[in-house]
């Protein structure tokens, strides 16, 4: 269903974009009274000058120029030269030959969007059911638990290390793992979180999660810069924020 939805959206977009230019390109098949008085926004028609140019690849001279007003005589000249459409400055829904194609494209986009949304809901429901069976690390809760464990592990182990250098190295090493593996894993579970908590709840949860992640990032930077005290304080704050995030996730 999702594939059909996306194909419908793509086809409708192509159709809509293709139909759009004709909004300003009235057909010269229209009666004169609908065209007379319109102003050209591009030149129209082509004729070879007399004498013809020496370069056989020359494109010729336009029959009418931009800003020329369409008159009965000019229309007749353009039609006799085989010109089918001209680009004008004025828009009229009635003159727009591609309007039905465009409306079809609009319907297609709405239909495609509906199919994608229905499929998305079904998949979310299915993923919710499967969540219990999924390995813990793959779920947002599992990823958060892993991040929390990285922070708590550091809080446990750091006091037992002998030098700040060892502590800083441990912080950089373990937080790198959390930053590059567990944080992205948590974020990839956004659809599950939205399904469980709604958009508002998701936003509130991510607000806390992001605050925690920033403290982790700061702890990493401070450790890399050799400012251990700052790094340790950031870990403390990250720990409290991880707890808040977990409460929101489980609440």
């Amino acid at each position, binding site marked *: 269903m999702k594939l059909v939805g*996306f194909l419908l959206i793509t086809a409708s*977009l*192509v159709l*809509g*974009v293709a139909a*759009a*230019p*004709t909004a*300003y390109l009235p057909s010269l098949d229209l009666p004169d009274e609908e065209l007379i008085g319109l102003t050209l*926004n*591009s030149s*129209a*028609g*082509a004729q070879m000058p007399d004498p013809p140019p*020496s*370069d*056989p*690849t020359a494109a*010729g001279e*336009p029959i009418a120029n931009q*800003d020329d007003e369409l008159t009965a005589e000019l229309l007749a000249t353009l039609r006799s030269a085989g010109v*089918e459409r001209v680009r004008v*400055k004025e*828009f009229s829904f009635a003159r727009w030959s591609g309007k039905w194609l465009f409306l079809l494209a609009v319907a297609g*986009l709405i239909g*495609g969007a509906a199919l994608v*949304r229905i499929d998305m809901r079904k998949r979310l429901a299915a993923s919710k059911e499967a969540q219990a069976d999924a390995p813990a690390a793959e779920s947002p809760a599992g990823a958060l638990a892993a991040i929390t464990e990285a922070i708590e592990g550091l809080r446990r182990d*750091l*006091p037992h*290390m002998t030098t*700040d*250098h060892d502590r800083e190295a441990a912080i950089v090493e373990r937080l*790198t793992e959390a930053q*590059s*593996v567990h944080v*992205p894993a948590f974020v990839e579970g956004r659809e599950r979180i939205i399904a469980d908590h709604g*958009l*508002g709840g*998701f*936003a*509130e949860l*991510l*607000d806390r*999660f*992001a605050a925690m992640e*920033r*403290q982790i*990032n*700061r702890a990493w*930077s*401070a450790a*890399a*810069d*050799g*400012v*251990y*005290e*700052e790094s*340790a304080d950031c870990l403390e*704050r990250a720990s409290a924020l991880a707890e808040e995030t977990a409460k929101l996730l489980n609440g």
Partner: protein
Amino acid sequence: MSDKPDPPPPATPNPDTPPTEAGRIGGALPPSSTGLFNPRYREVTVASIIFGLIVGAIMNAAITYAGLKIGFTIVGSAIAAVLGFGVLRGILRKGTILETNIGQTIASAVNTPNSGVIFTVPVLFLLGFSLSPTGIDFWLITLACVAGAILGCAFIIPLRKQMIDIDRLRFPSPTGVAVILKSPGAGAAKSIVLVAGILLGALIYLPVGAPDLGGPGYGSIGWTMPAETLAEAPTDPDASNLTLRVDRDRNGEPDPILTNTSFDLGRFLGLPDQLQLVFAIAPFALGAGYITGRAGLLVLAGGILAYFVLNPLVYSMGWAPETIRAHEAPGYAFGAFNRPLGIGLLLGGALMGVVFALPAIKEAMKSIASASFGARKASSDELGLKVLVVSVLAALLLLFLAADFVGNNPVNVTDPISEVKLTGDEAPDDQPTTTYKSYTLAFAGQDTLDQWDALPEEEREAYAEANNLTPGWLSWMNPHVRALIIALVGAAWIWFAGIIIAQCAGMTDWSPISGMALLTVVLVLLLSGAGAVLGAVLLGAALCVAITCAADMMGDLKTGYLVGSQPRRQQIVELLATGIGPIVCMLVLATIVAVNMKSTGIPIGPGTPTVAPQAQALEAVITGVQGGEMPYALYGIGALLGALLGIGAFPGLGVLVGLSVYLPFLYISTYGIGCVINMIVVKVKGKRWSEDWGVPFAAGLVVGEAILALIINLTVLAIG
């Protein structure tokens, strides 16, 4: 100043640092330091501020010159980040990751406003206005741009949580900058990869930039179309004897397939002329595409829709004038259809994005309000609402004053009767004014004003028509009320356009600044009247500066997020520094104009070394509005498509497609290669490997080009 007296010169965890008491772990939760200066960990320091201001001003000057010459600007943050390492960590031996980040934040805040200025202000010179630092109009425009810069930064701050914390937009270049900043702590191997990327980026770009210094470029290789002569020789001895397929410019030489800046694969493969498969030689686009990854393929898809479906259709259906030849069709279709449709798609997509993001925006605002007034006030990491409100009100007041002043300024530069010039050194001192069709007209003296009053109405009408003095939507209002409404609408537009630009930059790294600049000036012209060009450009410049600053602020905050910088500190330094940018840029512009006048007699544009391509595009739009040529319906059609695209897959889809329809294909194609390479690397080596090793290398490509381009521009600027 509360810097730590003797901080260590760290690059990796320092083995010499003395141990602290049990690692300070456990006990009560320490409050976050919210002052501007952090006594323990170097972040905002005097060194970082001075560094940022100097580097920002230098970049601003060089990039202003480059922008006026080639039409687009280059990434400043990445350059500042690399220079920050050299200066703060290398020379001063005490910079930290966060201090370098603050340095690059200030530098880009000073540099960025130039995009908004150079896309708009030069159009005044093209339209015959004169500006110089000795005149009030110059400083009025500068003041409006300063107001715009502050307004843009202040407006985007409340959206930080929504875009960065909640929507987690990728922001490829700011992500690359974060990689650069973190490289010392990430280990030597990653630093080597980063440096390798920088060197390769510079090496690839060298033949692109070298011709500006008189050196050889890629075009010197001489890879051209195979000669193919006409069956019949032209009778004109000056005409080319080659077919149009191989010699489009009719200069008698086969066209190059490889130029100094691009590779035309379409011509190499023999594709029909209306299909232009061209790749820009642009390492930054390649790197940005890699960092964006699979999501960037949507940009490529949009480009294919525009340039391989719509444009060939326009040609094959006879929708282009008959005098347009196949190879000219893409250029014609771009101006006539792609641009309005693309900007419309962007607008609709962004509007839908805002609608879908409302819960996140509401939550972000709630969080900021709570941090400003509520329980989390004491430990707030975010600039409070009070400061933001004051900044917005102050900037609004400046915008109103500028709009009010310019709205009541005469719109004519010559006397309507005697045609005596009313500006410049020889302008008469006393210039009486009158109001006609809500426009203020100035006269060289009372006698010509009396003659004007005595003219028959038809003649005054004819003058008004010849000078495009058509009334705007708000012309019927009291001028002060009109100025107030224009300021308010302008502020709302800044907010919306800032979101569009930040979303585009966040998702793809591309910012449609010039497109937004065009729309901004159109909006002001519609409100105030097509004849009020000076006012429209003044407000347009302010709004464009605001939009660019909003996008830059968001990018810097993303970098700050990734390195753990406190948003509040970044926001404060950015708000304080950004107003300097327009002043530097306007003074550089005035210098360039003075030099051009001396050497060519032309202030700017064709006939000078600074052709100001974007200002020429804006000039075409202004004359288009005055001549009724704007295809408003196409903007609307595009907006509807963009909005509907957003209700399907994800809200930003319309923005991505719109951006790609609007951008030149040669950059999209190179960007697309970067996206595809990322997907292949992820498939072969895994996502972690791609992030750990591929992203630093890609960031290096972005920076390598930017640094070399800056060096070349500075050299050209210095030696003229």
